[in-house]
């Protein structure tokens, strides 16, 4: 009997956020196909099934319920929406299924002592916020130059958008810059008054915490108001091709953070996908989008999911199908060193990620890329988020959560299991 490792795939290929959801989903699925083409995880083939959430929480929950028990049980879920993440965070422990939220989700879930089942691998929003401020400081010529400056945060008015606020407030207090908060209502097409306000208060920088159509609208409004695009920074969900494509030259100079990876179209992994899948007509989605920002993000999110299982097999038996609970151990003990990543084809795309019981994030590096009118180009070096600032924030928030939920922190013994 050949059993397969089952990966449920929550996607949104329809609705308001589809332009961003589709490339991510394509990358995710392509990687899983690639794993099989490479012979599986130590011989264990993977299977997967998509479920359309439309970015709506209740549909996401339904998908989760539908897929969690299928095909021998789900290995891991990647909710791909902050709202769904919040809902599943409550459910996953009961079902013993881990959640990976690579680059999104709740920032405090980096604390594995409280959030046993959540894995915001490779960075959280707090990391992103922190790095953006670092880059601004660097451009200004030092953190002390931030004093008296004015940064406006334009954010998607949802848990996703609000995640950025605490870290920016923390930094604002630290450096003495003024932070103004400008919420934009879902889905984000109505920003005229936001930009009137920006024109009135003329902030030195605008940080865009948007998603989907909000990003392109924001850039168009910036153009229409004459606000310099070079002074705008986007979060990593606001820095992909669909966000700028139809603005074209109008978005030239716009910066966005990119966590860990780049759009290396020439990287080994992209070539492999093209050769092993798209050349044989087994690829998902259009060929020329392979290697774009969101596609790559889907690709390595899937890679994390798979590598966790490989890690778990080290402990629970090579060539066996892992349960969710076993996979969780794998995610908690990831050790993706640079050679390992390079071997997987991620050379020049990813930096090492290694997790532990205390740290479910595994890495906190990011850099900035800039839209040159037709493609994204790196414009900064790697930054590391400031542990000194973020660690205490994570701990405080996680403790608050634990108190509310009456969860006791995991003991070192528990961490071993």
């Amino acid at each position: 009997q050949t059993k397969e490792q089952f990966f449920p795939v929550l996607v949104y290929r329809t609705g308001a956020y589809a332009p961003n959801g589709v490339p991510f989903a394509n990358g995710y699925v392509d990687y899983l196909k690639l794993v099989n083409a490479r012979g599986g995880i130590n011989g264990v083939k993977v299977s997967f099934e998509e479920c359309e959430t439309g970015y709506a929480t209740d549909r996401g929950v339904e998908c989760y319920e539908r897929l969690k028990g299928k095909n021998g049980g789900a290995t891991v879920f990647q909710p791909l929406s902050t709202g769904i993440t919040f809902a599943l965070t409550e459910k996953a422990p009961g079902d013993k299924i881990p959640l990976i939220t690579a680059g999104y989700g709740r920032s405090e879930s980096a604390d594995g002592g409280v959030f046993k089942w959540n894995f915001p691998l490779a960075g959280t929003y707090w990391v992103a916020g922190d790095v953006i401020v670092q880059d601004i400081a660097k451009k200004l010529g030092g953190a002390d130059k931030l004093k008296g400056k004015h940064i406006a945060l334009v954010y998607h008015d949802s848990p996703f958008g609000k995640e950025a606020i605490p870290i920016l407030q923390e930094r604002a207090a630290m450096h003495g810059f003024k932070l103004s908060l400008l919420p934009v209502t879902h889905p984000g097409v109505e920003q005229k008054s936001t930009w009137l306000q920006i024109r009135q208060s003329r902030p030195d920088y605008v940080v865009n915490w948007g998603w989907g159509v909000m990003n392109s609208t924001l850039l168009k409004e910036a153009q229409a108001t004459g606000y310099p695009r070079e002074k705008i920074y986007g979060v990593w969900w606001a820095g992909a091709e669909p966000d700028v494509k139809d603005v074209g030259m109008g978005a030239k100079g716009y910066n966005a953070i990119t966590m860990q990876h780049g759009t290396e179209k020439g990287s080994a992994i992209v070539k492999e996908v093209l050769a092993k899948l798209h050349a044989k007509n087994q690829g998902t989605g259009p060929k020329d989008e392979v290697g774009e920002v969101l596609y790559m993000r889907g690709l390595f999110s899937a890679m994390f999911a798979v590598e966790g299982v490989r890690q778990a097999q080290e402990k629970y038996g090579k060539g066996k199908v892992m349960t969710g609970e076993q996979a969780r151990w794998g995610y908690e003990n990831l050790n993706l060193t640079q050679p390992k990543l390079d071997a997987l084809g991620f050379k020049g795309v990813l930096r090492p990620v290694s997790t532990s019981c205390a740290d479910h994030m595994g890495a906190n590096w990011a850099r900035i890329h800039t839209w040159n009118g037709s493609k994204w180009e790196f414009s900064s070096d790697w930054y590391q988020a400031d542990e000194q600032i973020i660690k205490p924030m994570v701990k405080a928030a996680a403790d608050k959560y634990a108190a509310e939920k009456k969860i006791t922190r995991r003991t070192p013994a528990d961490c071993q299991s």
Partner: protein
Amino acid sequence: MFYRENGQFKTSYRADQQIFAIAQDRWAILALIAFAFVGVPFLVDEYMFRAILIPFLILSLAALGVNILVGYCGQISLGSGAFMAVGAYMAYNTYIRIEGMPLIIALLAGGFFATLVGVFFGIPSLRVKGLYLAVATLAAQFFCDWAFLRIGWFTNNNASGSVSVSNLNVLGWSIDTPLQKYLFCLAFLVVFGLLAKNLVRSAIGREWMAIRDMDVAAAVIGIRPVYAKLTAFAVSSFIVGVAGALWGFVHLGSWEPAAFSIDRSFQLLFMVIIGGMGSIMGSFFGAAFIVILPIFLNQFLPAVGDMVGVSISTATVSHTEFMIFGALIVWFLIVEPHGLAKLWSVAKQKLRLWPFPH
């Protein structure tokens, strides 16, 4: 042949005023309720409970509430999502801010606050009617969306604006497994269903319907429009509020304002219209249609695709799902504009005549 009321003579008005005047109906309903409590738990797996039955029960309850306002009192409202949100957030606050607050009281408190808000936003109904009112109630929707996002107190100052509850229990029984949750919601639905049915067939229900059908004439026979409309808003938002609290507490566990967005308001209204305005039964039909059909299509279409040997992409499935869903709505309306409940009663009427039509 068998579905007849022949020979069932009513000897008192009480008998004639029973909820289901025909004995077969009475037994069928009792059997159905008994089955729902006792039979279903043995037949159904966890997915069915969590993804289909529990949402169905809770949204039926909400649709019931909306039906009182829209179907019985004729006040079209698009603010139901907001009233659900008020129920959920206020139940949450009652639950976490008051030490040892029993769950049921917290849920009812959610309903109570929803009532207050509902009555407040019902005040324009005294002057504004029909579609104008419908759009005016959107003010409630957008205002509440905003308030819950923006006013920290409601979310216990959670940075993300999302709240969650856990470890629910009623009098020491924990409400944890899907089965327990199902039974809990079912109990709520049965109780509220009965109370609502009683209301709509009592004096107050007749006042609502009178206002709906011909408000000037209603005023002339002494019905106060103010009282009738506001009680309808009150009762409706209470039920909707409780449903909202259940949705947050029992179904989602953790939620943000988007869970009660304008889409939810529309969804509830559609349930009522598709199910049948002014029919308690219709609320259930409508909820079933709107909750279950998309899920069904979503799983059924790929299966069909597999059968004919093409694999359908997720996007195509959900586009097709949209199209079929839309087409079915139109088709049902053409077959029976007064909703599924009416279709049901016409079918019963035919059955009553069968096998000798006319």
